[in-house]
């Protein structure tokens, strides 16, 4: 019975023993010509400690991505390895096999308490801050009322007003020329949208059956370009969000 108790207590003591690892890390001094020896030693020691932490505590990883219209807007990879790393003795530095290599060997350990603490620490998932608003921004990129002036290729100017609704309907007005109509979407990218222009009211002074491009400059500014039926540029200007 005493022997059984002794065996049990030995097993128990082993299970609660500190976790210890021997780690060797190498760094190539040629890659860091501007670093001093002590800085290099610090870097390689950090690398060895990081490797020890990975082995003792394991690594948690998570990833998140936001994409709009075939383009990645944000991609986050989060890697976490927790816990306190303690060293037994001094780090041993030596030269590696290849020229310029600096090697360090450490004996690192964590106590049972350290491991328990690390396990209870909360590890959050990778989060993309305001992912929904990033998508919303792309979706609503061109929505709103835009106004400004455009220069025609004969040197005269005209005022332009474009209203793009949340539902994707767009209308254009040229107040000075007293004409306007609908803009029918043809292509929409993150920074460029192309419309066919259908003038439905006003006199013959308005170009008909043209194409309008809006190129995003920033959130409050777009470049307006109007092309005729034959693809010739008729007018160009800057519109501002109203």
């Amino acid at each position, binding site marked *: 019975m005493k022997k059984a108790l002794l065996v049990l207590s030995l097993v128990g003591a082993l299970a609660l023993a500190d976790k210890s690892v021997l780690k060797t890390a190498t760094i190539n001094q*040629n890659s860091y010509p501007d670093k001093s020896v002590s800085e290099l030693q610090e870097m390689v020691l950090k690398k060895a400690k990081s490797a020890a932490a990975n082995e003792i505590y394991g690594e948690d990883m998570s990833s998140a991505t936001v994409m709009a219209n075939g383009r990645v807007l944000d991609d986050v990879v989060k890697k976490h390895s927790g816990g306190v790393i303690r060293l037994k003795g001094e780090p041993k530095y030596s030269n590696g096999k290849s020229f310029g290599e600096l090697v360090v060997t450490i004996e690192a350990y964590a106590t049972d308490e350290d491991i328990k603490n690390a396990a209870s620490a909360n590890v959050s998932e990778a989060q993309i801050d305001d992912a929904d608003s990033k998508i919303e921004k792309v*979706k609503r990129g061109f929505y709103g009322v835009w106004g400004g002036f455009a220069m025609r290729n004969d040197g005269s100017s005209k005022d332009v007003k474009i209203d793009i609704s949340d539902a994707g309907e767009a209308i254009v007005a040229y107040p000075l020329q007293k004409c306007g109509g609908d803009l029918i979407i043809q292509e929409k990218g993150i920074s460029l949208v192309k419309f066919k222009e259908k003038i439905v009211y006003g006199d013959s002074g308005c170009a008909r059956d043209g194409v309008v491009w809006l190129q995003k400059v920033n959130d409050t500014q777009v470049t307006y370009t109007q092309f005729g039926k034959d693809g010739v540029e008729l007018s160009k200007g800057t519109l501002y969000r109203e």
Partner: protein
Amino acid sequence: MLKILFFLFVFLLAGCNKSPSVNKSTVPPKWISNPSQTQSIGSSVPNFQGVYMQHMNAVNMAKSDIAHNVKSQISSMLQNESFVTSNMATNKSKDKIEALSNVIMSHSYQADAHFDDDGKLFVLLEGGWSSVGKKPELLHEISTRPFDKQELVQSRCYAPAVLESIQTRSSLFQDKPVWFFRPKSISKNGIVGIAEKEEKMSFEQQKRVATALAQAAALKERMLQVKSKNELLKVVDGDVSGQVYESFMMTKSASTKVDELNIIDIWLDPKSCELYIYGE
């Protein structure tokens, strides 16, 4: 003086990076135009952010496609308006179709990839649900060339000693290691991580980023929440019509323990200095 300038000119020319003279035009694989039911294809044009982003765009597009094949909630809204003016009848209509998908995707992996002559990347994804346990489709044969160390040494991505230390074992197809296209062909757990070279970044730092990205890719293959929304808007205004298609997607993996990556091979692109890590 002229002689010195001449020698200097010759010296500079000799140091210029020689682009590998490879015929990039290859026959596109059949899966691009005819994927099977358990496959999905994503594509992406080249972009200035490098192959990592181009690849991610294509893979995510394929994943969104798989998600919609599995489960998709479709809603449609049609608005029609007809009116008569003094001398003509006009019809205006707007048709909006929305498809929403929110699924947990597991065991989806890249089976093959291909660059077309314009540099557009096509990625073939297998798996998801229906193909679990099924034998993968047979892939076509590709003609490869051996890795040439000289191309890398001349690249000036890093100091010559660092470049000399990079030993790529894989042969190249379309100027990239074969495992970039077919990561499961060498190891069934094979995975690729690509890291671009940023200013003042050391080779070791770049390698760490590529390794972490490979681990993240492995994580995404195992289990991934995919939320995706596709919208199609058709507008008719008399004799003028137009339509616009938009897609939005969010993916999220669980936070889990990852194993250390066992690096099988490594390749540094001599043109872009992007580092490719292949591991399991």
